[in-house]
Structure formats: structure tokens, C-alpha cells
């Protein structure tokens, strides 16, 4: 049975982050998290393959709580879930994260690997192509439609100025955009059943990756995260009539010197 592996991230739910007014820092400790949006599209695409006879497997690198994303993917319908975790995996950058996922892929031997275009929190878009590079397999980015034909995958990818239809031999890695599908919402029953399913735990050591190796692969460190200052005037323009309101706006824009 051909196997599709989906790499997902339990991301910060960026819509619900708050800013500490005193320090201007974004509060991330204890902040709400969820499966990254684009990863949900990747899971949905894997489930479509599953309906065509594939086995769908999901994997993540993350802390204990990251299991929530795996549970959600199980509830959506994937067959099994793998959790790469451990204290030594804190604050990994994309170089190390992608290496662990590539090592796991070597064990799981998927025919196809799917990732979201980027995670909603850090939004680098690096992990997918990096995995492909570690594994020396073809990579197709920004894919908005996908089909498998024999031993090949055919994908339509969306670049800024062009749409390209490309093909590659499997195994291959595909990163998908939100346009590719509408992810299903699992039923309460499915969620309950998924909560009882086993999740396989792997440490870095289980994947043959030593602590020293992980340290060598730490290339990028975060020095500071702060909320951008965006000072705006916030003037609400009111008036008796729409005409009066727009006249006031035009006055203001002339004052600002922004009208041509």
C-alpha cells in the first residue's frame, strides 16, 4: 500500500495572541495553540489519497502539547501518528527540525510527503523544502492541485506571475497552499475515538540523531520578539450626512498632504 506522510506543526494560534502593554512583548507562554492552517490542508489532501487506497501517516516535532495536533489529524481520519519529542528539542530552528523529520521519513519510507506552505506562527516555509533536500528527493512548492499518476506526481503550483504544471517521480515532497482543498471538520465521535488511539513517541536518539548533532544544527537563534509599534491617529469621522462625512475626510487628507 503506498504511504503518504504529512508533517504538521502545533502552532501558536496567532489570532488569539496578546501583547503585554508594559513591555510591548507578545505573550507566547501558555498562549492558545492549534494545528497550523496550511497543515490542515495537507492532512486533507492525504485523506483524499487514503480514499484512493493509500495509508496516511502524520508526524510532528514538538512538546507534550503538540500531541493535540496529532489527535486532530487522527480525528480527521489519518491511520497513525508519530510524535518526535524530548527536552533536548526545545527551540530548534528549521535546520534541525527538518533534519529530524527527514530522519523519521527514512524510517517510515513514504511514497509522498506533504507539508503546508508555511506555519501560521513563524511562517518561514523552510521546513518542507529542507526535508526534501536532506532526503535528496524532488520538491514542488506552493501546490494548489495534485494528482498521482503511476510512479509520478503531477502538481499545479502557483507562483507570483505564473501557474506551472510540473511532474516529478515519487518519492517526492509537496508543500500545499490553502487553495488546494477545504479541510474536513471531524465529528465528535471521530474526536472521541481519536483520543484513544496510540501515538508513537520517538526521541532524537530513536532516530539516530545525537545531542551533539542537534547542537551543530542550531544555526538561528531568536534574540527578541516584540510587537511592532504602529501609532495611528484613530480619528472617527462623524457627521449629519454622508456628504458631510466625506467632506471632512477630504479636508483631513488634504491636511495630511496625501491627495494628488
Amino acid at each position: 500500500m503506498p504511504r503518504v506522510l504529512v508533517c504538521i506543526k502545533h502552532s501558536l494560534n496567532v489570532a488569539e495572541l496578546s501583547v503585554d502593554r508594559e513591555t510591548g512583548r507578545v505573550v507566547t507562554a501558555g498562549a492558545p495553540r492549534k494545528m497550523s492552517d496550511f497543515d490542515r490542508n495537507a492532512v486533507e489532501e492525504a485523506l483524499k489519497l487514503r480514499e484512493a487506497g493509500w495509508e496516511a501517516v502524520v508526524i510532528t516535532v514538538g512538546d507534550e502539547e503538540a500531541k493535540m495536533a496529532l489527535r486532530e489529524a487522527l480525528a480527521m481520519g489519518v491511520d497513525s501518528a508519530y510524535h518526535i519529542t524530548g527536552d533536548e528539542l526545545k527551540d530548534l530552528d528549521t535546520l534541525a527540525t527538518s533534519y529530524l523529520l527527514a530522519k523519521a521519513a527514512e524510517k517510515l519510507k513514504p511514497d509522498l510527503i506533504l507539508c503546508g506552505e508555511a506555519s501560521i506562527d513563524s511562517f518561514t516555509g523552510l521546513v518542507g523544502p529542507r526535508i526534501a533536500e536532506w532526503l535528496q528527493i524532488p520538491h514542488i512548492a506552493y501546490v494548489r492541485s495534485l494528482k498521482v499518476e503511476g510512479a509520478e506526481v503531477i502538481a499545479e503550483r502557483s507562483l507570483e506571475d505564473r501557474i506551472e504544471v510540473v511532474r516529478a517521480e515519487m518519492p517526492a515532497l509537496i508543500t500545499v497552499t490553502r487553495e488546494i482543498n477545504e479541510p474536513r471538520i471531524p465529528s465528535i465521535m471521530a474526536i472521541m475515538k481519536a483520543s484513544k488511539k496510540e501515538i508513537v513517541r520517538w526521541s532524537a536518539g530513536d532516530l539516530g540523531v545525537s545531542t551533539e548533532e542537534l547542537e551543530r544544527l542550531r544555526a538561528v537563534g531568536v534574540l527578541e520578539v516584540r510587537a511592532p509599534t504602529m501609532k495611528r491617529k484613530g480619528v472617527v469621522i462623524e457627521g449629519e450626512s454622508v456628504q458631510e462625512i466625506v467632506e471632512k475626510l477630504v479636508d483631513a487628507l488634504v491636511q495630511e498632504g496625501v491627495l494628488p
Partner: protein
Amino acid sequence: MTGVWVYSTDFSLYGELLTKADELAEKLGAGTAALLIGRDVRENADSLARMADKVYLLDRPELGWFEAGVYAEIIYRLAQQHEPDLIIVDSSRRGKELSARLATKLKAGCIPDCLRLDVEQGRVVADRMVYGGRAISTQACKTPAVVAVAPHAFEEKKLEKAGELVEVDVDVPSPAVRLVETRTKEVSGAALEEAEIVIAGGRGIEKREDLKLLHELAEVLNGEVGCTRPLAEDRGWFTDWIGLSGHKIKPNLYIAVGISGAIQHVAGIRDAKIIVSINTDEEAPINQVSDYIINADLYEVVPALVDAIKRRLGR
């Protein structure tokens, strides 16, 4: 310290990227190099030689189509020979894919979508937007490093160099991905990044034909029309959008029409000088980042605004 390299998938960005590269190379006590790779690109070598200490040229007929894996392998082989400290790529979709693959070949760190870029104590330090535009993250990367820089993040200055043209001899690997078909997108947003005035529509616009309201306003203001991601992706009215994952713009005047102001959208308009919001929802997040707010029906406000501007500007 052997230098700062620049490769851009968009030729027009070499000026700004090499200006930055020159500033960083000076701090490192090193030189700059522009990588000119592709088919029929030789004619551009002279103009790049005026902007960089070296131009590495690879002009091959089989490089007519950009496949990131092939370009990453070529640049990697050059980097193995010359060991640059930093490779700067443009942050387009092609550029980002290239930077990820190249950085992995080099076992190097990569920082995409840089808004600020510097070297401090031998490390590359960059700012980028994270958390859907809610925060700016300052990150440090050991060298060698690969970064992808957002378009127009840096100013272009005139560089007066007489760079050396080096023809490189690298075997072009065969692509692992093959092109079946390509078609041009109807690009509506290319002018957005240059526009002084941008009028953008959001989900408050009910029907496609109502976009003419925005076009009328854009016409009297000599501006461009853009939109939020849902209007492009979900409704298919535009090919591209303004926001974190789309165009990041910095016009003098931005008028948000029927836009709620999801943070991902706001991330794309952060650098606008003046933001006006027209929205019936007083609680809409866009109002918190606007200079002038009109809480009224866009279908009444926009035509009235068009008339008022016509009168004022005598058009």
C-alpha cells in the same frame, strides 16, 4: 571572510540587494559578488559589474526555466569553491524555495522575509515578521548564512564599481522536477507596491460588479486597486492580495473599503503613511490601525467620496 553574495530571481532587485550586500561586506572586510545565472543573461553582466566586486556568470541554454533544486545545486557548488559568509536571495516564492534548499546543502541557517539585515560580531542579524504580523522577531544566525530579503526592504544606492566578470564552469544538473505546462497569471497587483495611493476591498464588497466603486475611487485619486486574501482566494475576483502572504505595500494613502482587518492583512499595510477605513462595523480590528475611520455603509460613502474628491481636485 570571503564575501557577501547576491542572487535574485527578479533582475530589477539586484540594485537594492547589492546595496545592502555592499554595506555588510564593508563591515566584514570582504567583497561582494552578484550571481548571474540563467539563459541569455550575459547582456546583464555589465550592469551588475557596476554594482558588485565580482560577477559570477553562468549562461546556459538549459537554464531557461527556473527550477529551485537546479539553481541551489549550482550556487552550492560555487559556494564550496569560494566559501561566502552570506548569500542574499530575493524573498519571492522562487527565491524562498531556493534559499531553503541552498541553506540545507550548506547545513546553514536561513532567515526568510528579512525586513532588516545586519552583521554583528560575525553573526548575521535580521528582523522578520512573525505571528501573522503581530510581532517582529530579531534573529541571529551563524555564518555561513542564507537570507531571503523582502522586496523594497532596502533602499538602492548608486554603486560605482568596476567588478570583475568571472565565467564559471559548473555542470548544470538535470532537474528532478519537469515542467509540463506554464501559463501567465493575470497579475493585478504588480503595480501595488509602487503605488502612492491604494484602494482595497474586503469581504464587505458584496458582488463582483461592485468593484467598480473601488475603480472609480482609484481613478479620481490616480491610485491602484487591491484586495484582501478572501476576495482573491475564496471568491477568485483577483489573482493576488495585500497581506502577509501577498503584497506588502507602503503607499502614502491606503483606503480600506469593507475590510475587517485580519492581522495577516494588516501586516501588509503596516508601512502605509495614512490609513482610512470605511466599514459599518465599529468593532472591526481595522479601525484600531486606521488614522481616519468612517463607520458607515461603503455603498453610500464611496460614491459620495468620489464626488467630493472630483469637486476638490477639479476633475
